[in-house]
C-alpha cells in the first residue's frame, strides 16, 4: 500500500513535470500586435485632399478614403465612435505605422515594391491612374512626355514625381512641396507648370478649383491604393482583404465611388481589385 502510494506520487510528479514542460513550449512566437480583435483603432488619413481625405473646419474628416476606412474598421468589429482619425502626409506614412502612432493608413497610399519592404499592404481597395493637371490656359501639355523641361511639383514621400522623372526618365524640373494642396496653390500662382498624380486626387482638386485648371486626361500608370498596416501583421492583412471583398460584393464600393467621384468625368471601376497578398 505504501509502495503503491509512493509510486502514485512519482506518477503525479511525472505528469506535472510533463505538463509544465509542454505548456512552456506551447507559448510560441506571436508576431506584432495585430489590428484584429482591437476595441479602438487609430487610422491615418490625409487632411488636405478633397474627395479622399479632408479635415473640415470642425475637425471632422471626410472623403472616400475616410469612408472606406470606416467600413473596414466596422468589419474588424470596431465601433464608429472608437475610431480616431489622425492626419498623415505622404512623408509621414511609413514612420507613423512604424512608431505605432497609427494602426492603419488609408491615405492614397500606392502599393510599391519599395514601400512593401517597410509596410504590409492590405488591398488595394482601389486602382487609380496617374494623370497630369495643368493651368486651364496651358495648351502645350497633352501627355506626361510634354513635361520635359517644365516645372513639376514634387511632394515629399510621394511616388508620383518619381514615376515621371525616374521611371519614365522625363527630365522635368522638380519643385518640392509638402502636399498636393500646396502643389495646386503653386500651380495656380504660376510657380509650377504641372501637378502629376493619381486621377482621383486631381479630380478632387479640380472639382474644388473649378475652371482654373485642366486635367490632360492621358493616364499612364496603375496606382493601387493599399491599406498600410504594420509590417508582418498577416492576420490583420487577411482580415482587411476580406472586408474589401465584402465592400465590393455588397455594393458599398460602387456607392462610395459614386458619392465622391460620380460628378467627375472619371471612369470608375466597380470590380474588386486584384489584391497584393499578405505574405
Amino acid at each position: 500500500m505504501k509502495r503503491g502510494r509512493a509510486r502514485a506520487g512519482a506518477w503525479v510528479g511525472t505528469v506535472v513535470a510533463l505538463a509544465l514542460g509542454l505548456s512552456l513550449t506551447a507559448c510560441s512566437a506571436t508576431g506584432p500586435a495585430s489590428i484584429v480583435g482591437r476595441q479602438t483603432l487609430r487610422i491615418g488619413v490625409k487632411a488636405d485632399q478633397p474627395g479622399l481625405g479632408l479635415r473640415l473646419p470642425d475637425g471632422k474628416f471626410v472623403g472616400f478614403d475616410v469612408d472606406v476606412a470606416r467600413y473596414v474598421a466596422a468589419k474588424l468589429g470596431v465601433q464608429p465612435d472608437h475610431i480616431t482619425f489622425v492626419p498623415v502626409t505622404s512623408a509621414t506614412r511609413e514612420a507613423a505605422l512604424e512608431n505605432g502612432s497609427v494602426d492603419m493608413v488609408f491615405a492614397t497610399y500606392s502599393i510599391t515594391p519599395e514601400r512593401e519592404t517597410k509596410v504590409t499592404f492590405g488591398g488595394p481597395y482601389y486602382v487609380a491612374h496617374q494623370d497630369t493637371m495643368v493651368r486651364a490656359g496651358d495648351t502645350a501639355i497633352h501627355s506626361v512626355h510634354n513635361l520635359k523641361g517644365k516645372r513639376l511639383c514634387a511632394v515629399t514621400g510621394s511616388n508620383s514625381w518619381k514615376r515621371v522623372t525616374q521611371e519614365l526618365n522625363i527630365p522635368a524640373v522638380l519643385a518640392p512641396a509638402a502636399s498636393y494642396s500646396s502643389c495646386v496653390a503653386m500651380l495656380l500662382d504660376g510657380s509650377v507648370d504641372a501637378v502629376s498624380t493619381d486621377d482621383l486626387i486631381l479630380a478632387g482638386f479640380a472639382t474644388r478649383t473649378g475652371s482654373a485648371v485642366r486635367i490632360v486626361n492621358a493616364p499612364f500608370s496603375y496606382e493601387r491604393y493599399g491599406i498600410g498596416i504594420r509590417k508582418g501583421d498577416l492576420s490583420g492583412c487577411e482580415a482587411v482583404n476580406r472586408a474589401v471583398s465584402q465592400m465590393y460584393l455588397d455594393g458599398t464600393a460602387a456607392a462610395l465611388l459614386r458619392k465622391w467621384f460620380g460628378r467627375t468625368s472619371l471612369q470608375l471601376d466597380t470590380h474588386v481589385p486584384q489584391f497584393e497578398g499578405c505574405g
Partner: protein
Amino acid sequence: MRRLSLRTTPGRVGALAAVVVLAIGGFYIVANIAVGNARDGLRVIGHDAGPQVLATGDLYFALSDMDSQVASILLTGREGSPGAGQQELARYSQDRAVADRAALQAAELSVGDPADQAAVRSILDGLGRYERLASQAIVLDEQAHHPAGPPPANVIAVYTQATDLMTLELLPPAYNLTLEGGATVRGAYAAKRSAVLSGRLWMALAGLAVIAALVALQFFIAARFRRRLNPALAVATLGLVLLTVSAVRLLSGEAAHLQAAKTSGFDSILTMSRARAISNSLHADESRFLLDPGRADTYSLAYLDKSQTVLYVASGNLGEYYTALGASMKAYRANPRAVGFLGFYGDEARAHPGLAVTAVLSRFQQFQADDQRIRQLAGGGQDRQAVMLLTGRTAGSSGYDFDQYDQAVVSLIGQHRATFDQAISAGDRELGRSVVGNWAVLLLLAALGAAVLVVAGVWARLREYR
C-alpha cells in the same frame, strides 16, 4: 448485495472502479478531440484550401496566357506566311481548355462558400465576353493585313476592351481566390497544429491519470484481498499504456506532417504560384507595350512594378532594374547563401536554396535580358525585329526563353507539390491505419474494452462479499 458505502472495502473498490471508468471516458473524449483536430487540419490543408490554391493558380495562368497569346497574334499581323499566328491560336485554345477545367475544379472546391462561388461565377461569365471580344479583334486584324508591329487603331480599340476586361474583371477574382486559399491554410495550420499539440499534452495527462488510477485500484485490491494480481486490471493497464504511447506518437507524427506540408510544401507552392501568375501577366505587359503605343508608358510601368514584385532589387526605372538584377544575380551565383534580393524569389531562395530555384533565377534573368533588347529595338524604331524577338518560339527568342523560364517555375512548384502530397498522404495514412482500421474506431473499441475489463476485474472481487 449490501448497499455500498465508502466506509466498507467493497464500497471503496466500487468507487475507485467508477473513478477509473470515468477517467477512461475522459481519456476517450480528449483523445478523440485531438485526433479529430489532426483529421480536420489534414482535410483543410490537404484536400480543400491547398488544392484550391493550385486550381486557381492554374486558372489565373491560363486566363492571363490567353490574353498574352491574343496580343502576340495581333502583333505578328499575318506577315509573310498565311500560317503565322497558328501556333498562338493553338495555344489560345489549349489555354481555354485549361481555364475551363481549372474553373470547374475551383467551383467544386468553393462549394459552401458563397463569396468564392460568386467569384468563380463572375470569372466564367466574363470569360464568354472576353472570347467574343478577342475573336472580334483577331478577325479585324486578319482583315487589316498589317506588317509585324502595332495593328491599326480599330484593332487596338477592340483589344483594349478585351484586355481591360481580362485585367479588371477576370484575373483579380482568380488571384484573390488563390490568396484566400493561402489565408485559409495559414489559419487552419496555426489553429489545428497547436490544437493537435495541446491535444497531445491533454491526452497524455488523461492517459497517465487513467493508468495511475488503474495502478491504485490494482494495489488496493491486492492489499485488501491478498491477491497478487488482478489479470483483467493488468490487461486493461497494459492496453492503456500501449494506447497512450501510440496515440502520443500518432499526434506527434500528425503535427510533424502538418508542419512539413505547410512549411516545406504549401508556402512555396503559394509563393511560386503567385510568382508564376505575376510573371505571365508581366510577359503580357511586354506584348501590350509593343501593341498599343498609346498606353506604352502604362504597360512599361506595370512591367517594372511586377518584375519588382517577383524579384525586388532597388532601382528607380527599368534600366536600373536590369543593371541591379545583373549585379544581384552575379553575387548570388558567387554565394547562393547570401540572397541580396527580395520579392517572391528572395523568399524562395532563402527558404529552399538549391538547383531548382537557381534554374528559375537564371532563366528569369535571361528573360529580362531579352526584354531589354526588345525595348531597345522598339525604342530604335525596329518594331518588326522587336515583335520577332518577342513572339519567336525558337532558341534565342524571348518567347522561347519565357517558356523555359515558366517550365523552371512549374518544375519548382512540382517539387514542392511532391513534398506537400507526401506529407498529406502520410498524415492520412497514419490516421487511417491502426490495428483495427482508423483511429476513431480504435479509440472507441479500446476505451470500451478497458472499461469492460475494469468492471469485470472488480466484479469478481465484489462477488466474494455476497
